[in-house]
């Protein structure tokens, strides 16, 4: 066993022990930090410990010079192992440096295959061992001590972690952190309140300004197109197939759900429900609910989903959609799509879509839903 190459399990144990020792150092730094009475002192101490211990190159790269001087890291020493050259002699500093930096990276290739490969290697060498001609040998059969050391280090870590938590919760430092956290929360709340107030002022101003400009535009447009709209609406009302009086009209534009001059005109004569925009599927569902509140109750039955799909396919157009435009142009700029027919029980739901030129948009898409009670 003595001077035999160390196996994978033993080297893994040593690596874990080294890692746990470093973690214990970190936990000890936290433990000493939380004992300080004020936050300022605690932060100062933690920074000092970080400088002296945690980030100190002498500690971080300790594995390099420990391996060079003693032939092993603490983990390896406690498990009875030593790093030597192929003849059992001491490795040069250059080789140790290469092994512990570049070599480790080389072994990490393909998710650490270089480490695992030692399992099948007759000399029990990892890739970084092969690269520098080193081997890890067992000098003493100390693996039980390695396990005990690991357990002790883990127990210490657990003990100091729990102590640190306890101190942080009950000590003066905890109280100061708590107060600071409360101040932070108050600060955030105040900031968001201030921001909301600013936002509200800005938004309201913008909305008012936009509305007044829009209003003016719509009124001007309404004057310009009034006669056209009149004919338009009268045409809708004499749609021969319907034959019965309509109950309501829903207007909108395909570009936005702002009111159009057309809908403004309609408002004078009909009960108008606004809100037709590009978000068709949601809007249709919304309209369905709107109808219900108004007591119109179009029963789409099992065809509701089909109706929505049909609607989506046929009315999914915009000014750039040439297919739809040509379809409309062929049909006197009008398309009539029955949405709920068939097993619709209480009413037909038909919509008439028209394109009209507008000053505001290249094509104003006017959608008029006509609810027809059966």
């Amino acid at each position, binding site marked *: 066993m003595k001077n035999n190459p160390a196996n994978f399990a033993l080297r893994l144990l040593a690596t874990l022990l080294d890692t746990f020792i470093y973690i214990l150092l970190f936990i000890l730094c936290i433990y000493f930090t939380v004992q300080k009475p004020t936050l*300022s002192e605690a932060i*100062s101490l933690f920074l000092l410990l970080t*400088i002296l211990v945690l980030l100190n190159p002498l500690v971080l790269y300790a594995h390099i010079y420990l391996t060079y001087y003693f032939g092993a890291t603490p983990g390896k020493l406690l498990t009875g192992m030593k790093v030597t050259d192929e003849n059992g002699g001491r490795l040069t500093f250059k080789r140790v440096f290469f092994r512990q930096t570049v070599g480790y*990276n080389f072994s990490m*290739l393909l998710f650490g295959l270089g480490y695992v490969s030692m399992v099948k290697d007759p000399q029990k060498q990892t890739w970084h061992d*092969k690269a*520098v001609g080193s081997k890890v040998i067992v000098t003493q059969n100390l693996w039980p001590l390695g396990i005990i050391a690991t357990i002790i280090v883990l127990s210490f870590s657990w003990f100091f972690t729990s102590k640190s938590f306890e101190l942080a919760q009950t000590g003066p430092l905890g109280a100061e952190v708590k107060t*600071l956290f409360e101040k932070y929360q108050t600060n955030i709340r105040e900031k968001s309140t*201030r921001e909301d107030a600013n936002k509200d002022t800005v938004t309201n101003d913008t909305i008012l300004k936009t509305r007044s400009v829009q209003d003016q535009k719509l009124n001007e447009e309404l004057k310009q197109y009034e006669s056209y709209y009149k004919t338009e609406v009268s045409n809708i009302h004499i749609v021969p197939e319907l034959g019965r009086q309509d109950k309501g009209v829903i207007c909108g534009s395909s570009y936005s759900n702002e009111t159009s001059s057309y809908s403004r005109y309609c408002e004078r004569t009909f009960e108008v429900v606004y809100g037709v925009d590009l978000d068709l599927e949601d809007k249709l569902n919304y309209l369905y609910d709107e109808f219900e509140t108004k007591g119109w109750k179009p029963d789409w039955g099992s065809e509701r989903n089909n109706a929505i799909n049909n609607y989506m396919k046929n009315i999914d157009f915009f000014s750039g959609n040439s297919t739809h435009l040509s379809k409309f142009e062929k049909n006197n700029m009008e398309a009539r799509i029955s949405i709920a027919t068939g097993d619709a029980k209480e009413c037909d739901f038909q919509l008439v879509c028209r394109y009209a030129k507008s000053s505001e948009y290249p094509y104003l898409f006017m959608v008029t839903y006509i609810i027809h009670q059966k």
Partner: protein
Amino acid sequence: MKKEENAMEQNNKIVEQNKPDWSIDELYRSAWRIVKNNKVLWLFGMAIGAGGMSGNYRSSFDNSDLDGLRKLFQNSPNGSSELSSVLGASTNSFSDTLGSIFSAIPTYFYFLLGLEFLIMVILGVIASLIYSSWAHAALLEGIQTASGNGKLTIRELSEKAFGDLKAVMYVQYVPYLIITAVSIIIFLALAIPSSFFTNTSFIPLLLILLPFSILGVIFFILTLTWAIRIVVYDKKTGRQSLSLGFKIAKKKFWASLLLGLVNSIAIGILYVIIMIPFFGLFFGGIFAASENTNLATGLIIIGVILLLIFILGFSILGGIIESFKATVWSLAYNNIRGKYEK
């Protein structure tokens, strides 16, 4: 009779002289045979990739950190309003408390902390540079041994690479340092007068400089490509290798450029061919999602599983491609070795 023989001999000499130094087809076939049979080369190919990226060392100092620093030193556009809120009625007790806590910490703590970070970064960069050069040297040594049908081991190649390490590092990094310094000087020389002229007056000058710069970069890359092989195969010093590399790059410019282009195109096509099924599955899945949700989910799951497997395969593939490229250039160098030194 003798005259005829002499003429034949003369003719053969002329044919031999005019014969191209290499045929790409032959180089590719030999390179593939070597790479296929020597998996150790793949490892060093992978190591070159890993050393080149050196992500582990640099990721801790990225742009977001710089942004944070910049914010510290920048005057906030809302600075005045923030100041007024501090001085006004809504005095911020949180920032006051925080300020008093941090003002109690000695300034030299931050300095020492910064110094330690700097040492870590420098050591990391040094290790990464050594890693890349060592892997390069080992790969080239491996190719040489393999082309002579020798057996490759990590141990032997690494040992040979240690011998070449200093010169390889010289060839790999010194020219880059010089070029960077020269570029900075040129940039400053152009930037300072540009502040006195309008932007448009500089466009013709830049247009004249551009082809020269491209040519310069190509020459630079080719010189380094040959120089590193001269270091490893002929055991010349870094400086000698660079000078010889430049000579070869000059004399074999078009043939070397063609070889480099063919390499790049072939490898590009290979990557595209390998990536197409993955992209096909991915985009096919997205497209199918609008038509059939079950099919789309199935395709995307298959794609993700294949991609996970591919991540492992991809690094192996990277190693193979890296070693293949190096082998092609090394075999080409073997064909012209000693021919263009004068």
